[in-house]
């Protein structure tokens, strides 16, 4: 299975600053998914990356999958208060997808 470590665990940024979270694996990943959980809410699927070197954008969010398919990043440009929440890249192993601690983003207005 795929074991993915996510860093940082917490990130505090001033509104308008950029933010990046990383997911790293020691083994090649077949794919990677990203989810967002707003405070008080439940995780919601954002995107899935499959191809080596793939880059996808959703407005101010840029998702990248490494050339070696061992890492991925989510970059948010010019953060806004609506970006607050926890971002997850779940692990796939033993034929199931499981979530870990994610990266919690807080915005300082």
């Amino acid at each position: 299975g795929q074991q993915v470590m996510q860093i940082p665990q917490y990130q505090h940024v001033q509104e308008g600053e950029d933010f990046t979270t990383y997911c790293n694996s020691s083994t090649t990943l077949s794919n990677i998914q990203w989810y967002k959980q707003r405070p008080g809410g439940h995780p919601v699927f954002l995107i899935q990356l499959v191809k080596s070197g793939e880059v996808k954008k959703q407005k101010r969010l840029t998702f990248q999958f490494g050339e070696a398919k061992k890492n991925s990043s989510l970059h948010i440009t010019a953060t806004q208060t609506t970006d607050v929440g926890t971002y997850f890249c779940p692990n796939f192993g033993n034929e199931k997808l499981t979530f870990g601690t994610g990266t919690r983003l807080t915005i300082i207005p």
Partner: protein
Amino acid sequence: GAGVSQSPSNKVTEKGKDVELRCDPISGHTALYWYRQSLGQGLEFLIYFQGNSAPDKSGLPSDRFSAERTGGSVSTLTIQRTQQEDSAVYLCASSLARKGAFILAKNIQYFGAGTRLSVL
């Protein structure tokens, strides 16, 4: 249904009582997960159902926790003799994933709104 439905949305119980939490997955989804999320923490995997296969119970924290899935659809998570440390939000998710066939798009998980359990 249109989405994953969980009930009740909130449950307050006394220490030592049993509770049942219900999850109604999206129609046709074969995979169903239960997670626990304590305040300010990540998602803790509890149990995974996949079709008619034996469930993966590797995440259940103690023998007070059990879950079943009847008819491959609705699932019930039961916590016996509740303790204060059981207080958390219990989240259910479902997906189209099938055993032995990891089709990428079908492994997207759809979550319910959760049940907030408070043990007094």
